[in-house]
């Protein structure tokens, strides 16, 4: 018997306002229950099942229906057609710290959040010590939440969710929360769940995480299951699709992924080589200059600008940010530009993806993040194979004369 069985499930969304439709028209249409031409199917005829104890990853480009699928599995949405059957208690790590209130203390919030996740008062009380211990909040537990850093609040949220101890766990990219040491800790916790035989469904864009964590992968594209099978094959198919898209000029790049609260928005980006030429192909070993034009909708303190270069397998080649570089920007407001220059980029011939990010100092608020967004093409004259190349000097050291054994 499977833990989760999804059978020919489809989900249709009715858009509030179709494109070019006036508010009044939309209201009348909705009153008359007429279909809009812009209604769209987020999921179409999705079928798959998950066995008890299996860890299944759900991957796919933005807008492929992954989050909708999780919402339906979590039963906060109902499918338009088809059925979803789950065996056992379901808990979701979809929303960490659901219902947290800044005026309440950590303790009060634990009980509130725990009961939202379906734990009884008694259960929360029994697991309370464990939750506080895991969150590493110590005596802060009796201070109001608003005195917490955002990292502390996230830690608390994860700790409560982890204490829920469900049969089926739904996870939506929340493993990347908190600082690095807490990320490790939450990752360990997830592995514990896996080893304890929980059924886990995880949505992620992080192919390395999917590879190392999932037994099987369901690959969604435009609301349909295009692949369901072993992790390696699914990730391989996905990456090949990404490459195919890139080969078609990089436009319509489907792995492109952006998010953030848009308090600061990336308006435009100019990518040039060291001589200021906007070349399609960069020269390996040459400089890369990236100018990011941004607009801050409200004054933002201590923003951090960052970038990353990935290869098409989504392996991080290099990344840095203003914080790592100790380049402090006290505050921004309105429009502005930030420029960075990578000197003598040692990349070998190949295609790469540039990601840009503007986020808060504690990395918890993304203002605007564009991941795998800008294709870079590098042509290097240098020899060697791999991702990067540096000048190599070979030397032949003459063999020393064999020493005679002392007599």
């Amino acid at each position: 018997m499977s833990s989760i069985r999804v059978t020919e499930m489809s989900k249709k969304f009715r858009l509030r306002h179709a494109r070019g439709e006036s508010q009044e028209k939309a209201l009348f249409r909705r009153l008359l229950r007429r279909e809009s031409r812009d209604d769209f199917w987020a999921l179409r005829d999705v079928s798959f099942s998950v066995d008890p104890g299996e860890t299944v990853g759900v991957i796919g480009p933005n807008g492929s229906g992954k989050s909708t699928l999780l919402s339906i599995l979590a039963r906060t949405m109902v499918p338009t057609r088809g059925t979803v059957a789950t065996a056992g208690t379901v808990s979701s790590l979809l929303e960490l710290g659901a219902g947290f209130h800044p005026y309440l203390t950590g303790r009060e919030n634990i009980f509130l959040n725990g009961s939202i996740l379906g734990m009884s008062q008694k259960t929360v009380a029994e697991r309370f010590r464990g939750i506080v211990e895991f969150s590493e909040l110590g005596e802060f537990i009796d201070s109001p939440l608003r005195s917490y850093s955002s990292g502390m609040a996230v830690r608390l949220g994860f700790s409560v969710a982890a204490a829920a101890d469900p049969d089926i766990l739904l996870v939506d990219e929340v493993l990347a929360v908190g600082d690095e040491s807490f990320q490790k800790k939450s990752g360990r916790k997830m592995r514990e769940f896996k080893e304890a035989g929980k059924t886990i469904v995880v949505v992620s864009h992080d192919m390395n995480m999917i590879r190392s964590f999932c037994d099987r992968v369901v690959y969604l594209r435009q609301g349909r299951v295009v692949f369901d099978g072993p992790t390696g094959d699914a990730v391989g198919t996905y990456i090949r699709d990404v490459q195919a898209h890139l080969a078609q000029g990089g436009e319509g790049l489907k792995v492109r992924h952006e998010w953030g609260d848009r308090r600061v928005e990336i308006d435009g980006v100019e990518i040039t080589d060291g001589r200021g030429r906007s070349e399609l192909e960069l020269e390996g070993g040459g400089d890369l200059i990236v100018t990011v034009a941004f607009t801050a909708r409200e004054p933002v303190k201590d923003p951090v600008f960052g970038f990353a270069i990935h290869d098409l397998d989504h392996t991080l080649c290099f990344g840095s940010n203003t914080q790592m570089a100790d380049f402090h920007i006290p505050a921004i407001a309105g429009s502005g530009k930030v420029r960075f220059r990578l000197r003598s980029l040692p990349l070998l011939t190949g295609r790469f993806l540039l990601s840009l990010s503007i986020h808060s100092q504690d990395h918890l608020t993304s203002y605007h993040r564009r991941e795998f967004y800008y294709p870079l093409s590098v042509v290097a004259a240098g020899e060697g194979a791999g991702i990067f190349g540096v000048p190599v000097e070979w030397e032949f050291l003459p063999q020393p004369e064999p020493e005679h054994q002392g007599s």
Partner: protein
Amino acid sequence: MLKTIRELCRWRDLIRNMVLRNLRVRYKGSVLGFLWTMISPLFMMLIYFLFLRLLRIPIDLPELLIGILAWTFFATCLSDAVVVITAAPSLVKRTPFPKLVMPAAMILANLINFLLSLLVLAGFLAVSIIFFGYRSAAGWSLLALPGVIILNLALVAGLSSFLACLNVYFRDTEHLISILLLAWFFMTPIMYPLERALGSLSPALFSLYCLNPMVAVVSLYRFVFLGTAPPAAAGFYISMAVCLLTMVLGTAFFLRREPYFADEL
């Protein structure tokens, strides 16, 4: 109906915690805290009383206070209800508890405030009777209080779930409700005794007026605490039916639309 009640009982710990949150949050940081529940109706009563005196509208102070307390409970619930779902999109979209818990917890929190304010009323009545020779015919009528509260709750629950749900689909509800409440306020005998409405409206209009279930609710509270005549039987039964019907229809509407809340937020 029974299934709904059983479901809410299953989630009683969540309701309890949400009620606690509402109460804690409301008074956090204010010096007088909980006392405000008691102080503000008294001040409102005095202000209304002074203006009504100026306008030469005669009303008894305890009658006025009862009207204000009952109305405050009703109006607070309705204006809280309209945003109770829309203000928490992440809870609705990401956590799978029955969403009827949200209006239920909100109403219970307001009910606790209302019950506390009834203590103020009791104190006020005691002072009026002992020191100012006020005569109250209340006695056995006090026993009717739980019944009246249940009737009141039925009305509030039905309207709250209806409004909470409606605002998910039509955000204008949020703005319309304050206007509606203002009109409703004047259509309910709060600043004036019921007899005045009886005196100035034609019999046909008066029976229409009595269709407003709040007329019965306020009159019943006055009956409970002051022993004034309860509303005429016919009007009373109609109001009772309206209250119960509101509850059934309002919650049914809410439960029917609940699965689609996440699609709309």
